[in-house]
């Protein structure tokens, strides 16, 4: 299977503070990768840099064979990278339907249309005409995921989709994620809940203070991941 996303030596900063230091990894087509790490480890910055919302300071990003390091975010969406941002970031004064439609790309054909998205998230059907700012956390999360899906992405990036949600809503979100994974969508998800993350992902990447400290699949034990998460083991050379 070919590598869909390839990140090499990526560096990103917030002003002068480094947030992502020399991170390299690959994601193959159809994989689900969990990106874990404590707060401030750089996970959100890494996702945003891959999506193009944050400028990289050094390194390279290759997507489907093309170097997209200098490509602007809206162009990356066009090529098939969609990010569900931390905090959902819906357009507050647009309705649910408008939030979805505004992200639809007629040039990216696929299974996801306004109707199929609403089928996948039936709770949104009665909320079509409601302003996004009035939705609950779970409803917003469903809209945000739908908004990413409607562009028929090849790579779906999810940043802390369970944050601030009631457990029952988190259940619902992960149920739909499982369906997506079974459908073959390539996913990288950031998740603070280690248990959840490892339950859906085939591979885990752990970050600490901007660096990638652990990477592996089912061969990794829970202890190894926990140690890497808290920085209790040395960074691999």
């Amino acid at each position, binding site marked *: 299977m070919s590598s869909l996303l390839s990140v090499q030596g990526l560096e990103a900063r917030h002003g002068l503070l480094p947030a992502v230091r020399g991170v390299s990894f690959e994601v193959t087509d159809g994989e689900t990768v969990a990106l874990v790490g404590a707060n401030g480890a750089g996970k959100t910055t890494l996702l945003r840099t891959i*999506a*193009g*919302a944050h400028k990289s300071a050094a390194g390279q990003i290759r997507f489907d064979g093309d170097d997209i390091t200098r490509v*602007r*975010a*809206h162009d990356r*969406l*066009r090529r098939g990278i*969609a*990010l569900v*941002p931390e905090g959902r*970031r*819906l*357009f*507050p*004064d*647009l*309705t649910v339907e*408008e*939030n979805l*439609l*505004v*992200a639809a*790309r007629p040039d990216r054909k696929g299974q996801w249309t306004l109707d199929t998205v609403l089928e996948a998230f039936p709770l949104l059907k009665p909320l079509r005409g409601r302003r996004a700012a009035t939705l609950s956390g779970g409803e917003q999360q469903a809209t945000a995921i739908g*908004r*990413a899906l409607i*562009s028929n992405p090849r790579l779906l990036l999810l940043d802390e989709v369970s944050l601030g949600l009631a457990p029952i809503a988190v259940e619902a979100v992960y149920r739909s994620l499982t369906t997506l994974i079974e459908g073959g969508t390539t996913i990288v998800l950031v998740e603070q809940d280690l248990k959840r993350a490892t339950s859906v992902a085939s591979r885990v990447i752990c970050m600490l203070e901007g660096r990638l400290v652990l990477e592996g699949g089912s061969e990794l034990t829970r202890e190894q991941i926990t140690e890497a998460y808290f920085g209790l083991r040395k960074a691999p050379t």
Partner: protein
Amino acid sequence: MTWTNAVIQGVFLGGFYALLACGLSLMFGLMRIVNLAHGDIAVLGAYLITVVLDHWGVSPFIGFVAVLPIMLALGYLLQRVILERSLRSGVLVPLLTTFGLAIVIQNLLLEKFSPDVRSLGGDAGWITTASWQITNQVSIPAIGALALVVAIATLGGLQLYLSRTPSGRRMRATAQDPDTAELVGIDSRSVYAWGTAIAVGTAALAGMFLAMRSTFDPYAGSTQLIFAFEAVVIGGLGSLWGTLVGGIVLGVSQTIGAQIDPQYSVLAGDLVFLAVLASPRGGIFRARLAS
């Protein structure tokens, strides 16, 4: 002129102000920029129309149609070349940049055209002088009515564009959150550029009416900017319809002031503006491109 007539004339004047202000309101709602060169751009439009008229002797309406594509292109370039950069540099820079641009436009016009006042009222034909006599004291000027109708149509058209069309939707999304807009595939720079182009286009339209209903000179832009800004602030809300209300209130204030004493007309509008600023609402306009 009776008081009733003064109010009616004020409403029509307000229509013109609303048309003048809608571009300013649009740019602020979209990008949080107050384009200090907005008035001068309207005057530039007026002068370009006079160039067309002087060469081909057509009516100002045809002149506007000829000038519109140029103005739209200028607006697009203005955003891409100048304003885009200034947006990234903090809040002071767009003010300073657009102020510099205003000075440049004013004085380029002064160099190219004489400092004498001009008017296209004569070239517009019957419409500038015609009016409908409603009662003994009240008459409706044709040009005023036209300006009001065009203002309502423009504001309504813009509102429809924003709420019903895909590209209008994209513009609203970009206004609310430009970073996330990029993430969902919207080219925010292009959206901003089109927004500025539309704003400049409406300014040119206002410039045409300015040329037809009164005189103008190269330095008239400053006054037009102040009127436009006053209309936006008085209208308060930031929705485009608020601009219509603000324009009409400003127009009526000015005509009522003029009724007391012709010298007081602009002053009356200024005082109403200052009163709105001083009120608890304070003229703070949470301008969003509201649906």
